[in-house]
């Protein structure tokens, strides 16, 4: 039950022993989703500067490995509560660049059709619940997903992400206690990116929250959050345990928020050296070097990603703004269809037919 470290110094160190569960295609896919995430967010930031993205804009620059790596370990029938630095999870599940960019721009064809803004979205048809702003409320929702899985005796797992700052709120505790008590199949990914808005870690807690997991009866594991393969592997293990009835896991992904909290924030409060230090650990650079060494054609991949984002941008820009006459529609649901979370993409090779039987 003690806190493990699977961090930079651990087995998942950069250039270290790579996970035996990943094919080269998987590794390239991890890079692809990270490139997509970074590229889409850069594009959205440009659109924001051009006045095409209303409201505010948040991104996960530098943290791409966290959501991509862990979402990659989740099966189609698993369910995700995706947070504001975790665009990668949506991409892994199969949400298209166009629908995401349309979302940022408040277009009718965006994921929420302009109802909700920026990163506050989730396509429930691919198993994702759209986050709420109140942090970390979604930890309880994820716990509830897992509770349902356990009640129905389904071999499924829930996962959610949240920041270091979010651990200070009561819902963190209620979720951790509940999940630990009932040994629920849920994975909590604590994204420790050094800051909660402007607030550094030492103004948030006296003891790193990963240490708290044991006080709830389940393991807390520290992971190199800038290594998608380390994130994948830690999540895969946690998921396996969860599905075997072993209960929840708290993964602490050590990373750094490389941009301001939101578009308006120049992060003056962050020491330059800290940013510099973390720039060396850029997750995309690292994964790129890794797969390039293994012979992947990274340049072609980059072109493919750029083309996909270009096409998505055009598509999104062509989307209409929502019709004001529909603004008051859809307050209550009274349709016939059962609208519940559906299965999403699960691109990891381990989920391919037959792979499951190998116990992957």
């Amino acid at each position: 039950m003690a806190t493990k470290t699977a961090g930079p110094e651990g087995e998942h160190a950069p250039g270290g022993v790579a996970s035996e569960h990943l094919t080269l295609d998987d590794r390239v896919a991890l890079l692809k989703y990270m490139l997509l995430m970074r590229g889409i967010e850069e594009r959205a930031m440009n659109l924001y500067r051009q006045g095409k993205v209303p409201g505010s804009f948040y991104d996960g620059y530098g943290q791409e490995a966290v959501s991509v790596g862990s979402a990659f370990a989740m099966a189609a029938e698993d369910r995700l509560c995706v947070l504001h630095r975790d665009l990668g999870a949506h991409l892994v599940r199969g949400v298209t660049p166009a629908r995401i960019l349309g979302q940022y721009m408040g277009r009718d064809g965006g994921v929420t059709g302009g109802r909700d803004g920026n990163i506050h979205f989730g396509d429930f048809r691919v198993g994702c619940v759209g986050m709420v702003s109140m942090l970390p409320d979604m930890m309880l929702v994820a716990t509830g997903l897992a509770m349902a899985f356990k009640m129905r005796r389904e071999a499924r797992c829930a996962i959610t992400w949240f920041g270091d700052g979010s651990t200070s709120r009561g819902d963190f505790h209620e979720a951790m206690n509940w999940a630990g008590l009932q040994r629920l199949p849920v994975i909590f990914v604590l994204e420790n990116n050094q800051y909660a808005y402007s607030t550094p870690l030492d103004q948030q807690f006296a003891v790193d929250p990963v240490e708290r997991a044991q006080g709830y009866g389940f393991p807390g594991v520290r992971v190199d959050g800038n290594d998608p393969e380390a994130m994948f592997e830690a999540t895969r293990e946690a998921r396996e345990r969860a599905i075997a009835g072993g209960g929840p896991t708290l993964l602490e992904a050590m990373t750094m928020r490389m941009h301001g909290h939101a578009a308006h924030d120049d992060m003056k409060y962050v020491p330059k050296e800290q940013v510099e230090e973390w720039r060396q650990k850029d997750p995309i650079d690292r994964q790129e070097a890794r797969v390039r060494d293994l012979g992947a054609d990274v340049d072609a991949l980059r072109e493919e990603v750029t083309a996909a984002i270009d096409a998505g941008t055009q598509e999104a820009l062509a989307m209409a703004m929502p019709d004001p006459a529909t603004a008051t529609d859809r307050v209550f649901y009274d349709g016939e269809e059962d609208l519940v979370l559906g299965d999403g993409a699960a691109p990891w090779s381990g989920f391919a037919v037959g792979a499951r039987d190998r116990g992957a």
Partner: protein
Amino acid sequence: MPTMTYLQAISDAMRQEMRHDERVFVMGEDIGVFGGAFKVTDGFIEEFGPDRVMDTPLAESGIIGTAVGAAVVGLRPICEMQFADFISCGFDQLVNVAGKMYYRQGLPVNITVRLPSGGGFSGGPYHSQNPEAWFMHAPGMKVVAPSTAEDAKGLLVSAVRDRNPVVFLEHKHLYRRVKGEVPDGLYETPFTARVAREGTDLTVFAYGAMVHTAMEATEDLDGASVEVVDLRSLVPLDEEAILASVRKTSKALIVDEANETCAAGAQVAALIADRGFEDLDGPVRRVATPDIPIPFSPPLEQAVLPSVDRVKEAARELLEY
């Protein structure tokens, strides 16, 4: 038809709906072995087992939040707050997560939150509150408040089947005081108002326990013909029924056990003052609890909760207007 108390009707609705639909389950503090603080789920754990009659830790945010999670993968949780007052501790999950999900994300949240509410028995400031107006003012959830055993059962069945979050106000003071014939089997009561007594000279609008206060106060009011409308549902509010009654009687008195300011009664009054104005033949009067915490000591509590006498007096004034 069997005769049941209001409380038995609530139990019956849940028990039958749980037999009928395996997606339905109940969760809350002490609802399992103990059968709930008010014994509403007495015997449930024996019949349905601890998975579907889930004793939770003392954590209201946890109850609502996990219920939302369970709902969006296809279950239909019924959450019990031990007292309505404790919903304040799950407030955020209810108004911000459950209430807004469908509008924002197109994902309906099929949960029912049962709130044993109301005063009248020296419960004091924390066991007597009527919080419904908070949820009327929070978009995306329905709010219902039965006054009879028959409606308690039917509205609860409807609530559980409704795809949206429904806040179900069950008045503690009616639990064992109110009895009535309740149809066997499962039936749904629509979220509309009900004319509890027809009349022509004045309408009293009320819901929950206040329906009984209104009925008693106007039973024999110097021969006046007083209509009593039991709102039953606060969201949606049956605006047509309210306006139709005002059209008929021209006089409106609204009785509300909640604190007066911004209460359900204020909304009904505002509705009438706008769309019923032409029909009015007198001011829209209200009887409600003043804006204070509900005091514990009987003389204080009785002084502030709307009483039969206060309703009588207000009704007489309006009739004479």
